[in-house]
């Protein structure tokens, strides 16, 4: 592990300024409309000082902490996903030519580089998963690839997991292990400060430009204790060694009817999930039909249209759609990409209006199979 | 010149029946030949005779004034044409027409029914085989009914 240095609040502001000075658009957690969302951050005053959160199945509330922590909450409402993978993206712009033909121009892929500030370990793991899904197979998403290139990542350790968190079970947190340029651990006893570890030469080089102080052995221990406490304080757990088998085996289970009686197919879970990547395409034309813009938009396997085949829907029922989502996320994803599709962020549980809990659904399926013997 | 018994032994429908049973059945059978266009039987007629095709092609058809004659099924070598001889009121629901030169073994339905009445074992064996034919034809009809190549509606 790279040697740590310590930043105080002024140092953290210096980090933001240095990033902005290098042309990065700094995206970090902010409070808006009673939720924490990722938005552009200009100063440490934009961060959610003293804000905590309370999350449970179908429940999300911001709380007032009794300290001034800047990162004292768990998963924000939305992950880093929309930063690199927008909900609506122009793919190309087409124009009809005089000779009945048309010409097509790809949408530009360049844009100002992004610096993520305070990204959670689970969400960082999710970005890593998207890197595999969207850029490491035979055909890639070049716009995503371009946005990821030159991204600067300042991750943060979670000290206060929420009621729906289970990153420890999924091996994706609470401390970021990889994929960051700098990782911060917020320490509040005494001077408000941040243990900063560089994960890349770029991160090292930036830290070297900032006003930092040497990290004490006590602080290293304090940081480790925070992590241990966070692991012990996870809201939920999920056994993972047999997920693929449990889900593949359970394909004809009556359990899906049970979930179907609760699930509204509202698509909230897929919208907030940091690893979901399904999209659709839309052609937007003008009235004269001379212009055709092709957009790529987020889509969800919970929509009936998703599985349309001519005049029929392959997954007509909510039960089969829920089964598709959970089986893909926890099972088939392994076969497709060599890893689980779930990072344990708990958002699907928090934001489900029917309070459906992915960890409970899997446990129910497993119990049913164990009972059957 | 093959004997009837020999022909029956070879046909898939009777294949595997014990020799005495084949002999009994042969007693109700004779060879038949149809040229292209000949009707084996017409819809509505009494189902006196049924056929096992030796070689050729027979169309099972229904005539409809507005649409003409529709072919519902075509039968080929080794296949049984007709089972209404076994089910009351012993009348053909469809017509059967030789599409090409066809040789067949023809069975007297009443003769066979009589032998089945006196010999239940024979009756059971024939019933089993006719049921198998009906099963296959029903499956095939249902698949055709699906109209799976039709335009999606």
């Amino acid at each position, binding site marked *: 592990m790279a040697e740590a240095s310590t930043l105080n609040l002024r140092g953290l502001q210096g980090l933001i300024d240095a990033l902005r000075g290098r042309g990065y658009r700094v995206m970090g957690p902010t409070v808006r409309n009673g939720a924490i969302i990722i938005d552009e951050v200009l100063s440490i005053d934009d961060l959610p000082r003293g804000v905590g959160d309370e999350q449970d199945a179908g429940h999300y509330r911001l709380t007032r902490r009794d300290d001034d922590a800047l990162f004292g909450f768990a998963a924000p409402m939305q992950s880093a996903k929309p930063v690199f993978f927008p909900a609506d993206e122009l793919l190309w712009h087409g124009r009809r030519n005089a000779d009945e033909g048309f010409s097509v121009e790809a949408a530009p892929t360049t844009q100002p580089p992004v610096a993520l500030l305070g990204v959670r370990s689970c969400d960082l793991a999710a970005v890593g998963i998207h890197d595999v899904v969207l850029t490491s197979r035979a055909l890639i998403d070049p716009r995503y690839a371009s946005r990821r290139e030159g991204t600067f990542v300042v991750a943060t350790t979670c000290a206060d997991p929420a009621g729906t968190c289970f990153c420890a079970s999924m091996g994706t947190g609470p401390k970021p292990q990889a994929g960051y340029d700098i990782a911060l651990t917020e320490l509040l006893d005494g001077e408000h400060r941040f243990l900063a570890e560089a994960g890349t030469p770029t991160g090292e080089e930036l830290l070297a430009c900032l006003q930092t102080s040497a990290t004490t052995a006590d602080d290293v221990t304090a940081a480790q204790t925070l992590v241990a406490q966070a692991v012990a304080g996870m809201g939920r757990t999920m056994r993972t060694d047999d997920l693929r088998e449990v889900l593949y085996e359970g394909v004809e289970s009556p359990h899906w009817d049970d979930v179907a009686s609760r699930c509204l197919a509202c698509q909230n879970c897929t919208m907030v999930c940091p690893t979901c990547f399904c999209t659709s395409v839309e052609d937007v034309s003008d009235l004269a039909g001379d212009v*055709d813009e092709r957009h790529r938009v987020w889509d969800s396997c919970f929509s009936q249209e998703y599985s349309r085949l001519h005049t029929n829907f392959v997954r007509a029922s909510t039960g089969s759609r829920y089964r598709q989502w959970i089986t893909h996320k926890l099972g088939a994803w392994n076969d497709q990409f060599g890893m689980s599709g779930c990072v344990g962020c708990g958002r699907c549980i928090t934001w489900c209006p029917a309070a459906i809990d992915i960890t409970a659904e899997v446990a129910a399926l497993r119990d049913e199979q164990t009972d059957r013997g | 010149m093959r004997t009837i018994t020999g022909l029956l032994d070879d046909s898939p429908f009777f294949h595997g029946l014990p020799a005495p049973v084949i002999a009994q059945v042969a007693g109700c059978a004779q060879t038949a030949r149809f040229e292209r266009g000949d009707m084996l039987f017409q819809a509505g007629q009494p189902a006196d005779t049924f056929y096992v095709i030796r070689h050729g092609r027979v169309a099972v058809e229904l005539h409809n004034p507005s649409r003409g004659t529709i072919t519902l099924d075509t039968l*080929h070598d080794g296949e049984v044409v007709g089972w209404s001889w076994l089910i009351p009121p012993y009348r053909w629901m469809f017509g059967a027409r030789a599409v090409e030169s066809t040789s067949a073994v023809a069975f007297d339905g009443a003769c066979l029914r009589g032998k089945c009445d006196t010999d239940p074992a024979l009756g059971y064996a024939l019933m089993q085989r006719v049921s198998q034919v009906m099963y296959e034809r029903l499956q095939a009809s249902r*698949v055709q009914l699906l109209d799976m190549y039709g335009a999606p509606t």
Partner: protein
Amino acid sequence: MTATAAAQAHADPMLPRPFRVIGSRLDTDDTVTLSLEPLDGDPLEFEAGQFTMLHAFGVGEVPISISGDPTWPGPLVHTIRDVGNVTHALVTAQVGAIVGVRGPYGTGWRVGEARGGDVVLAAGGIGLAPLRPALWEIADRRDDFGRVVLLYGARSPSDVLFAHDLERWAGEFGMDVEITVDYGPPTWDGRVGPVTKLLSRAGFDPPRTTALLCGPEIMMTLSVNALLGRGVPADRLRLSMERNMKCGVGLCGHCQLRELFICVDGPVLDYERLAPLLDVWEL
């Protein structure tokens, strides 16, 4: 194709290449075969069984199997049935119109692997179109194969596709071609009944046979049962599967059948991989 255009098309798989319609043939009352030529002059090479994403400007895009001869350099050929907005735009496209093409995508029939044995091709309805390239590939090296049997089920005689090719395959190229219809009008002297019936009687040597199936899923599963029943090895059966596709390149997620992306792992899939997935409700 210019180096930049080629690099761009490869780098951005969602960008369509413009092709001009140079021929449009009405096959049946709802099916048309289009011949396309690339505006940049760079021919599209493909394997039998692959598909492209065809784009009708201002309307949308659909996956269509390539139905041309892969051994014959020439226009890009697709046989399209009018079943929705996009296919309607494509079947009504006039000669000279421009359509967008992305691809070719997906897995092919792997006709070469069937060499040295018998081949059974079972086609249901428009399923004959994706098999047509395989038939021409076999015809091109006819002596490499044993008995070649094409069993083709159509709705009615007026829905039979590629009548001219059927004659040549049966005649010049020594294939056993059997056509059957679900509905036989008075003018039809041929077979009536489901294509599965043909499978139980066709002349091929099961242990040496490779079977290629394409048609409605029900027809393919019934055909698989008939072929397995005759002793065709399970690892020599291939089906062409179909699902909703929005990208054709494994990124949109729509075509998934459990862990399989039909656009990348398919559309041609070995029966052994499909077996646990075929009979499950709404999978």
